[in-house]
């Protein structure tokens, strides 16, 4: 049985010489929900961009048993649903429908299948009534849900989210957390929202300065006050 995400000794430096990842190894089981925390600039977003080959560093990255390299990229991008931090960048089509249909269209599905996928994805995020809406006029919470629908329509095996709750008001945040709980997928979520981590993720990974500094059960790590403080984190009250 393969791991959903297999990262071995991954290192990456940006063209300007700045080292963003150093010897990162991470293994995630199917249907495991893992939180990725750490201060700004720790390398969380850089790591996420490696999961579908947008960035490629030294080391090995396998997703659902496939190595992330040129001939596999199409399949991998369909299997890894990557939701970026700003829904303004994720929703680039004129209407909600077009955006949710984008992934399935590029998977080469028939028009009927695309329609079906769009309906299912919007249903899953409870936004079926929004298909014909124009993205610009939605609230941030609505945009975040649609952003998740845009990758769900590709029926991915792994969902990777960058800062899903950032900027949301309490109500929108609560309904997003409920939504994430419902989704039966392998999940890697980068976040600063420690309450969310506590509530939803049994396992958490702490990154700092391009390295994984801790990886374990959330209940254990959350009580290691020194560890949290050393990496700019705080246990939620």
């Amino acid at each position, binding site marked *: 049985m393969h791991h959903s995400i297999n990262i071995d000794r991954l290192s990456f430096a940006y063209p300007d010489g700045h080292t963003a990842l150093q010897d990162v190894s991470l293994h995630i089981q199917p249907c495991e929900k893992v939180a990725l925390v750490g201060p700004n600039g720790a390398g969380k977003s850089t790591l996420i961009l490696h999961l579908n080959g947008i960035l490629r560093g030294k080391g090995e990255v396998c997703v659902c048993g496939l190595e992330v390299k040129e001939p596999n990229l199409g399949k991998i991008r369909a299997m*890894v649903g990557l939701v970026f931090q700003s829904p303004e960048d994720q929703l680039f089509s004129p209407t909600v429908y077009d955006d949710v249909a984008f992934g399935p269209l590029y998977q080469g599905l028939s028009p009927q299948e695309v329609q079906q996928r769009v309906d299912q994805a919007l249903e899953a995020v409870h936004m079926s009534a929004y298909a014909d809406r124009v993205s610009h006029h939605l609230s941030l919470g609505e945009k975040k849900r649609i952003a998740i629908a845009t990758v769900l329509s590709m029926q991915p095996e792994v969902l990777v989210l960058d800062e899903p709750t950032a900027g949301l008001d309490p109500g929108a945040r609560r309904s997003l957390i409920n939504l994430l709980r419902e989704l039966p997928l392998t999940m890697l979520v980068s976040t600063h929202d420690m309450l969310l981590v506590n509530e939803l993720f049994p396992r958490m990974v702490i990154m700092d300065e391009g390295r994984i500094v801790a990886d374990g059960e959330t209940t254990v790590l959350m009580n290691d006050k020194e560890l949290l403080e050393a990496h700019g984190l705080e246990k939620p009250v």
Partner: protein
Amino acid sequence: MHIHFLDPFKAIDSPIHELDPRVKLVLSLAFILTTAIIPHGAWPVYIFLLAIIFSIVILSRLGFIFVLKRSALALPFVLAAFPVIFTIQGDPLASFNIGNWQLIISLQGVERLLSITLKSWISIQTAIVLASSTRFPDLLMAMRAIHIPRLLVAIFGLMWRYLFVMADEALRLLRARLARSGDTGLSDKKSGGSLAWRAHVTGGMAGSLFLRALERSDRIYNAMISRGYDGDVRTLPQPPLGSSQWAALIGGLGLLFILLVLSIIL
């Protein structure tokens, strides 16, 4: 903070709104082309054209005042056409003496100016009704249907999506400038700086806008390829035109053809 006023579309329930966007786009373009082809001074045909566009404005329920206000956009150009009343030779209507100059207003000149103004007014009303009764995403579909290059339509679509986002950013920059444009209130201290300085500040704002746009285009690119984008523009197939829509298309084009023939006979 959202810019809504940029979007001219008005969601109203009207027969014009319900017309298929493809039919609407083709008929609008054909109507504007017909208006352009009809010769200057063909008054009876102009009356027909005006009657048609007025009925369309009324049918669209956009409000005559709304359309009238927006159509004022073409007014400055009437000024550019104004001198033709003097420069076209013909039967003199009136003449003025300004110093040694004699300006003669000719009948043909006035006819030309009136024709240009009317043609322009009819055309701009058509464009206003098209834009205000059709959602832009539907207009994009219509553009693909009349075989405007898919790549260009895709760029239009993306541009439209980010028009509002970038306009919001521009507005934030303007507000930030305003918030810091203090005035000392002392009469001997001139506020606002020199013209070159103001232009320089505005230029800096434009520069930062472009820089943000470039960075944003990178992030959008990442989001697009994450969902399998490969440079090829793919879209869902368009639904076929219904029989009533075909009827509207053929009827509309037929009417315009009759008007063209009329303008030749008259």
